[in-house]
């Protein structure tokens, strides 16, 4: 099955405020999208709407294919060693090749370290490792570069590129510049309500 994600004319309301409206997006297999905009403009909300975690105020989202999400929330048990905390999700996801993900994110030496002792960047890398393990075609990434050092950023950009080469979709919300393979750029400021 080809991965596909189409958003039609969506609007987002948080509380009493209409954040953006009239946003349409069509992603086919191999597409990369970079959502940009200032803080508080609704990037995270857009990612959550695309993930189906938030109902759009108007419009609809159609998806074909499994989705993986990385946002600022880690969803790992902080008191467990990293390896065990990730193992829970590996069991749910049917873990394709956990060692590969740990290696790609350079987490091999941290397997025994409790999650609460990890630095911001290391936690982000752990969340990305879980995404890799999930082996799903649609990646939804909310500020994936936060906390990553230069080397990890490059490794991550390479992963996204190979994911798109393999027919995956990557939607990245980030205020930072990020090298994506021929991305569609969505300036959220153009859809302000």
């Amino acid at each position, binding site marked *: 099955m080809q991965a596909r994600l189409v958003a039609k004319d969506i609007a987002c309301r948080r509380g009493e405020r209409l954040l953006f409206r009239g946003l349409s997006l069509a992603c086919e297999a191999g597409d990369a999208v970079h959502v940009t905009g200032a803080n508080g403009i609704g990037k995270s909300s857009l990612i959550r709407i695309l993930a189906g*975690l*938030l109902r759009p105020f108007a419009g609809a989202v159609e998806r074909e294919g499994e989705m993986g999400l990385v946002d600022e929330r880690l969803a790992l048990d*902080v*008191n*467990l060693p990293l390896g065990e905390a990730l193992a829970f999700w590996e069991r*749910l996801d049917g873990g394709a090749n956990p060692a590969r993900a740990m290696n790609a994110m350079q987490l091999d030496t941290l397997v025994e370290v409790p999650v609460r002792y990890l630095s911001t960047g290391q936690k982000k890398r752990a969340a990305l490792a879980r995404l890799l393990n999930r082996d799903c075609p649609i990646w939804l990434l909310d500020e994936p570069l936060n906390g990553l050092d230069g080397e990890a950023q490059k490794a991550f950009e390479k992963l996204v590129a190979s994911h798109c080469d393999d027919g995956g979709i990557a939607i990245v919300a980030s205020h930072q510049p990020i090298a994506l393979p021929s991305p569609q750029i969505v300036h959220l400021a153009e859809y302000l309500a």
Partner: protein
Amino acid sequence: MIGTLLKRDLGLLLPGGRGGAGVLPLLFFLAVAMLYPFAVGPDAQLLARTGGGVIWVAALLAAILPLEKLVTGDLETGVFDQLHLRGISEELSMTVRLLAHWLAFAPLLLLATLPAAALLGLSGETTRTVLLGLLAGTPGLAAVGLTVAALTASLRGGAALAGLMVIPLAVPILIFGAGALARPDPGALLLTGAISLGLCAVAPFAAGAALKAARES
């Protein structure tokens, strides 16, 4: 998949686990049974007559203690979001958590009832009725607790509110469960079980709806 979820939930909630209230509810429960004779005096007859009710009240209050960490942590760290993306509904994850919550506090509470009954000088007959009542009533207490914990999870100061909200909702269980002590027929116990089953059937849906609402807010 359900096994994986249950294993993680039990790891969190069991005494000695990583995120639960530990043995605190049990100690609290035993402390009440220990303090009561000090408060009312050593009149064996009075203790034997009222002790069953005291155990019930202590059990109800002890069931409130683990609620604070039952749902809040996983909601804040986005575990339920990640489960949702994997096609695991809130209702299913709440069903599993209900089972884990009951397993983590009820069997040990039933065990602790034996020393508590001894401290209060309950007869064998009364102890048996209390144990059967608690066996029938604790699933209902767990269901009420989970629902309220999910409802208050996204509120500031939700834990204190959860405690207050559980008490009125648990009153029917208390009335029939403790009421079985006063009557020789098993009707009250059966009613307690029926209320429990009803609450257990509703709780995953109510708690699941609460989680979804919390996500939208």
